[in-house]
């Protein structure tokens, strides 16, 4: 990688760029540029326009207004394409992963790199991706021959990142990372951020979108704050502090607020649990228990059996299971929205009410009025940003889609809500609203099973089970919870 240091010309430059989706103005006149050798952080709440901005940069969306320049040349909206952006050296790692699950890691790599061809292309591609994975994530443990669909979401993300950073004929000059660390556990995330620094020092450029402000401060040279489709602040990173950055995002928040004391104390942990379950491979008598009104956390590194147990419990509510007994109705909040949550052909409203169909019907027929009423009530309650619940679900930004999935579960008659790391890529403000809502619901007697990869979320729980290798490795009560303990339980026996 040897970009000519003499040219300080921006790799990409946007002037007054706008983009609308129907009535929603996702971008409303944005000026933005990235020069070689810098890392730019982009922060903002859900629906602020970050993902749209990145899609315009990557050529996946055409802008409605304004000017896009790649390496100084103006590109017309009709000409702007992924191929064009790719030629300019722009690579993009999106929140929604774009690997083909039925192909191997090496085959997916080949799809990104057209110049690998001829006999032995699989081997060439395997070497390319393995080298890059080793460089970014030492000890990654991913085989180039593994089928992507069999990998955990964290590992898929690692492959996606490595594939975008690897160079064949055309080198990556600007890599866009959209919430790259949200599905990675902390150790892998720090490996990635360290690599980003090396990449930028060598003259490459990176745009980093993250809700983890520590990542942004630790990695970026410059930070752009987005709100309502505009860049409202743009300064060198050292001219921001945590407080001023959060303040400019528009939500009045206080990062240092101690975690609210939950009402339910351990003394309430008596009587019959409504959920009692153990992972199939658990050999000791450790069990996960959930009582009414409790919030129980499932912690540990990503992909260590938490989701599998949630699904097992979800199925056990309907069919008998040897491993779990569930005395109540259960609703599921998906973390992997595309695979487990969204019905892409339906309206926002239909996506919300699907869990409550029998409750909204009489003699098997849905009552339109009551359905409408439920949709509007939950739009208000969770502040889903849309002019009309009758719009297609895909008109919403990722965070608002997630709110719709929350509404689906909370609007239902379920006494138990299972949450599969649902806050991935959701902004601080929305998170707080949802946490508050969960606490209220718990006080009213609902019980929550909450798988999360973020330690900050565990403080909302009454009780935490830490998972390791598909087993419950530790059982921690609320007043003894510490990050140290969770980490210790997650790593014990593995670290040399």
């Amino acid at each position, binding site marked *: 990688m040897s970009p000519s240091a003499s040219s300080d010309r921006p790799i990409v430059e946007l002037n007054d760029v706008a983009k609308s989706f129907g009535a929603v103005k996702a971008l409303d006149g944005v000026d933005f540029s990235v020069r070689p050798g810098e890392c730019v952080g982009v922060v903002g709440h859900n629906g602020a326009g970050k993902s749209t901005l990145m899609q315009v940069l990557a050529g996946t969306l055409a802008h409605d207004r304004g000017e896009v320049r790649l390496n100084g040349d103006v590109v017309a909206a009709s000409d702007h394409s992924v191929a064009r952006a790719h030629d300019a050296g722009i690579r993009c790692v999106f929140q929604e992963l774009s690997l083909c699950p039925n192909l191997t890691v090496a085959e997916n790599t080949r799809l990104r790199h057209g110049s690998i061809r001829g006999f032995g292309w699989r081997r060439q591609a395997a070497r390319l991706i393995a080298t890059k994975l080793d460089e970014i994530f030492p000890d990654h443990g991913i085989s180039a021959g593994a089928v992507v669909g069999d990998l955990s979401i964290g590992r898929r993300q690692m492959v996606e990142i490595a594939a975008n950073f690897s160079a064949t004929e055309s080198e990556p000059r600007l890599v866009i990372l959209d919430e790259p660390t949200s599905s990675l556990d902390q150790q892998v995330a720090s490996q990635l951020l360290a690599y980003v620094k090396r990449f930028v020092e060598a003259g490459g450029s990176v745009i980093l979108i993250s809700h983890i402000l520590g990542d942004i401060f630790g990695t970026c040279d410059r930070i752009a704050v987005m709100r309502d489709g505009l860049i409202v602040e743009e300064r060198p990173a050292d001219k921001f502090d945590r407080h001023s950055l959060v303040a400019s995002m528009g939500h009045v928040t206080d990062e240092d607020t101690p975690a609210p004391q939950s009402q339910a104390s351990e003394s309430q942990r008596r009587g019959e649990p409504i959920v009692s379950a153990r992972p199939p491979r658990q050999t000791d008598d450790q069990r996960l228990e959930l009582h009414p009104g409790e919030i129980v956390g499932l912690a540990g590194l990503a992909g260590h059996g938490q989701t599998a147990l949630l699904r097992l419990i979800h199925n056990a509510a309907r069919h008998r299971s040897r491993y779990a007994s569930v005395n109540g109705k259960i609703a599921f909040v998906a973390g992997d929205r595309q695979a*487990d949550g969204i019905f892409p052909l339906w309206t926002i409203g239909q996506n919300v009410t699907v869990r409550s169909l029998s409750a909204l019907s009489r003699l098997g027929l849905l009552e339109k009025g009551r359905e409408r009423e439920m949709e509007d009530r939950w739009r208000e309650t969770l502040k889903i940003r849309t002019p009309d619940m009758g719009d297609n679900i895909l008109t919403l930004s990722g965070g608002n889609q997630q709110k719709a999935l929350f509404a689906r579960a909370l609007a239902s008659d379920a006494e138990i809500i299972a949450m599969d790391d649902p806050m991935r890529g959701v902004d601080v403000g929305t998170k707080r609203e949802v946490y508050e809502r969960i606490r209220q619901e718990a006080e009213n007697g609902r019980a929550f099973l909450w798988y999360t990869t973020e330690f900050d979320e565990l403080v909302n729980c009454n009780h935490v089970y830490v998972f390791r290798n598909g087993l419950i490795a530790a059982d921690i009560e609320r007043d003894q919870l510490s990050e140290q303990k969770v980490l210790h339980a997650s790593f014990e026996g593995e670290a040399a």
Partner: protein
Amino acid sequence: MTTKRSAAGLAGLARSAPWLFSFVGALVIFAVTLAANNWSGAGQIITAALSFGAFYAIVGIGQMFVITTGPGNIDLSVPATIALAGAIAMTTMGGSDAMILPGLAAAIAAGFLIGSFNYLLIWLLRIPPIIATLSSSFIVQSLAIVYGRGLRIAPPPFLAEIATGRVLGVPILAIVTILLAVVMAVVLHRSVYGRSVTAIGQNINAADLAGVRVGTMRFATYALSACFAAFCGVMLAAFSGGASLNMGEEYLLASIAVVVIGGTSVAGGFSNVSGIWGAALFLYLLITMLNTLGVGAGLRQIFTGVIIVAVITLAGGRKKGRG
């Protein structure tokens, strides 16, 4: 993915009124046929189209629910079910008006059993639906041959009257089938069952996690399709003066064609009932037109195939919002 402006208008229409194309197509073909006929015989053509279209529509509605449950779901046992159900009904009725209801019940029950068997293969043995329904159709067809060989029992007079009679020039069977279509449209769009089926067709995994009873709903769908085929078999036997073993043959292609031409997405999760009627008329009128123009049977089949491919191509470009 870039949005192509030019196709946006047509695609938008395909989404908001997917049934429109089949009716427009039917009208165009009707006009061409009339022109070739020197603008005479319109009444006759319409009556015949309604009569024959009704049979297409009956099997099409059942097939539509199956296709709605998602890619790979299809019921190939329709022709065999028609043959067996027709034979059972005619035998049970024995030409007597008093036995119409028991005979109809026996035929529908046979359909229900066939549908259950189909889903049993799919669910228990995890066979793809296309293979499961095809293999069960061989079994059913063999049963029909054993059971109905040399069978020549005339339908009860009252049933024959329903199948062939008219009220004010409109075939009774068409009226019955239109009512049936209205009921099934309500079921598709307004019932818990219909909503569940469209959910399964879009994302079976998400449907399961959203509390939809996926197994029960898929079972009901295959059973429903076979029951509709059985009903079609009874009416077809009544219409043609008795059951015959090959009377279901043309309904395999037709049942799928009317669903697709009617604007239902072959990818599942997006369907409508009214388009099936439009497509049924279209399909019959197309055959009439080709006949009128003196086109042979082989060429007719080719035309039908080409039209189905063309419709899938036109309606297939499903647009999504932002990624």
